[in-house]
């Protein structure tokens, strides 16, 4: 970690490029944050392994032992992570040589996209609200509501094939929108801080779900545990089947990203919400109704998170359970922060998180390294990205002109 020596007299193209690379621009900070997170993750893997730790007890006598064992442990863990996320080279070569199937080779990528699809929606939900100056911690609760409404509609009506799916998706959108509208209207009318109301609404939603799945008419009549009836075949998002679990949801996510990017950058409402996010007082003076923007924005953000929940139920889970939404709302928060609240960056951040999650599964079953390591990595990456000054200090980067806090928020 040596500082790049600055030689102002030398100004060739290469040195210019290197210096820019070493300045604290957002790409460099993101990359270095990931590197830092992976390094800390490696340390965690080693210190939590008693066998390797035992080798460290005679480190001074034979340092090679401990280092080889550590390297072995870390490299198999991370290579399993990569194989689980992108695919096993052996499976690819088996496919090309005709001994394996293409399904087996592409299964890891399918898993990555499957995990990423709901995260795109929840990430966009948080990112959009951020741009309007609101911190939507409630994506989790809105996604839960989306799960509930989409799931209930999904197994209640026996509508024909396309219609049923469409209605279930719309139900998910409306459920989430309602759950987002509550904090929005409370903020607009009474000034109640959306952080507090959305945190509380998250728990209300998940308690409601855990009550609902046990009710008659919702619970699977053949089961005694907390699980609902299965979503009708016609309301499920179509997928390849077999090991390829990836479903239409990822294409919907792509479309949603297009939509949000258009809404944010090209529509009148997008302009209003960015104006409100930048300076609510100035926006009010300019004739934009801040209250109306807050309420509408939270409803739209809630609708996006609700769609994420709907995609989760209709695409992957196919039935409601108390934990059906998993952690997609809170992960969406990290995704939005990683994507710096820009729609397309958020999309790719969701892909990265999906990859980490899919790889984490393989790491857990092949290397016995708990899936929680992935949560740690995700949190660490975002912590470093949110504090670029910290990364800059660690790597002694040059200050960049556009260096600023990764998260800027207008706070009420």
């Amino acid at each position, binding site marked *: 970690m040596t500082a790049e020596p600055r030689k102002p007299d030398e100004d060739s193209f290469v040195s210019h490029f290197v210096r820019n690379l070493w300045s604290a621009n957002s790409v460099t900070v993101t990359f270095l944050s990931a590197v830092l997170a992976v390094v800390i993750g490696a340390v*965690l893997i080693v210190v*939590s*392994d008693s066998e390797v730790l035992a080798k460290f007890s005679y480190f001074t006598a034979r340092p090679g032992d401990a280092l080889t064992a550590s390297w072995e442990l870390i490299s198999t863990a991370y290579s399993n992570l990569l194989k689980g996320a992108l695919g096993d080279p052996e499976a690819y070569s088996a496919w090309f040589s005709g001994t394996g199937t293409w399904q087996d080779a592409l299964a890891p990528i399918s898993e990555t996209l499957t995990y990423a699809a709901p995260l795109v929606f929840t990430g966009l939900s948080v990112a959009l609200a951020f741009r309007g100056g609101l*911190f939507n*911690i409630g994506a989790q609760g809105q996604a839960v509501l989306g799960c509930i409404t989409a799931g209930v509609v999904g197994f209640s009506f026996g509508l024909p094939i396309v219609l049923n799916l469409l209605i279930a998706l719309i139900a998910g959108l409306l459920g989430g929108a309602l759950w987002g509208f509550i904090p929005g209207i*409370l903020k607009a*009318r*009474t*000034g*109640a*801080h959306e*952080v*507090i*109301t959305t*945190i*509380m*609404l998250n*728990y*209300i939603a998940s*308690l*409601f779900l*855990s*009550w609902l799945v046990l009710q008659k008419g919702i619970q699977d009549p053949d089961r005694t545990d907390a699980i609902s009836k299965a979503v009708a075949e016609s309301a499920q998002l179509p997928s390849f089947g077999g090991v390829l679990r990836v479903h239409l949801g990822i294409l919907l996510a792509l479309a949603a990203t297009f939509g949000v990017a258009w809404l944010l950058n090209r529509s009148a409402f997008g302009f209003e919400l960015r104006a409100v996010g930048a300076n609510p007082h100035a926006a009010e003076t300019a004739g934009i109704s801040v209250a109306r923007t807050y309420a509408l924005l939270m409803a739209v953000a809630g609708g996006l998170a609700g769609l994420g929940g709907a995609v989760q139920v209709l695409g992957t889970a196919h039935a409601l359970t108390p934990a059906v939404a998993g952690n997609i709302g*809170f992960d969406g*928060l*990290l995704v939005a*922060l990683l994507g710096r609240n820009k729609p397309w960056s958020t999309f790719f951040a969701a892909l990265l998180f999906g990859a980490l999650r899919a790889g984490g599964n393989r790491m857990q079953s092949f290397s016995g*390294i*708990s899936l*929680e*390591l*992935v*949560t*740690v*990595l*995700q*949190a*660490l990456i*975002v*912590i470093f990205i*949110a*504090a670029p*000054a*910290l990364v800059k200090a660690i790597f002694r980067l040059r200050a960049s002109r556009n260096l600023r*806090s*990764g*998260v800027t*928020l207008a*706070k009420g």
Partner: protein
Amino acid sequence: MSTATVAELTEVAAPEPFWTRQRRLGLGLIIFGGLAAVLFGALAPSEAARFTLSEDAEGAALSINGQFGAILFGVLTVAAGGVLFAGLAKRRQTLLLTLGILSFVLSFLCWQVAGKFLPLVDTSSGTLQLALPLILGALAGVLGERSGVVNVAIEGQFLMGAFAGALVGTMAGSVWAGLISAAVGGVIIAAILAVLAIRYLVDQVVVGMVLNLFALGITGFLYERLMQPDAAGYNTPPQMPTWSVPGLSDIPVIGPVLFQANLLVWVALLLVVVIHFGLTRTRWGLRTRAVGEHPTAADTVGVRVRGLRYMNVLLGGVVAGLGGAYFTLVATGSFSKNMTAGAGFIALAALIFGRYSPFGALGAALFFGFAQKLATYLSAVGSPVPSQFLNMLPYVATIIAVAGLVGRVRAPAADGLPYIKG
């Protein structure tokens, strides 16, 4: 100031709008009381509801006919609301509100307990136990937020405290070592929060939420790597001993609840008093409040804003870490993944519902603890009221409180704003 002057001043002041806070509160109580009297009264069977003074059905008991009780206490709620609404007792607003809520709860209890019994000692000590982490967590929040640092990482501090307490407590074989390391665990999360929020100016809510996930991940990871394979070596912490104060513990109901408890209960109650006294009566408290309300002014008169904020957030980490110790050293006896299950956020709710004050937080925490205890009691006796809805109570109450439907809660003015020396 004499009362006469106050009366004169109110006469001179502009006429208040008809819907004052008091009137709205009164109307709310009247509606809820009426509902209680009619609905609970109609649903309650006309059988005796027994509130036993012991831990079981035996012994002395306060007994009342369930139906009569439900109607009586419902009417009492209406009466309290009526007095408030009519504006007869302007000075006794809080008292009347408390009375109204209390009699509403009693009306509900008469309905639920009719034909059964509710052991008072068990209920109150259970309430205090469940409220214990909430009190400590909310106090941690008070320390941070009064000096202007939002702490939504209480959940993470709980988890870290619970984990560290279990790990070190087991390895050292001493509950006191566990307790100290639980505090250290809380401080670790608090320190990251403080550095990122105060030094690196990252949005405090963002840091808090990310730290919650970080704590969830790292404790879950180490749990699976260390504790699950070797529970005896890493995850069987000794438990906090229950001490009883000779003499005082013989008092009925109060004795077994308050004077036959573990150290943590007394620490929590003592901390409420100490922090209240500290905030209102000491130099530290005055400076903390100044920094939380107007850091620039505080800085101008020579208060070290950032230093004070660091200190308060770290102290909060100690307190929240102790709250985390409750989960492994008092309640269960072993650590498990995500064992706090949102308690940190209920503590946050208690902090807000308690209006950012130590005694308010204590009251709110006890109220929420009681709701949780009641939820387990009701599901045990097979009540038609689902326990999930009672568990929603803290969250709904907090939304109502922050939305100002019954009296607005005001956060410290500089809460959440980083201080940049100009």
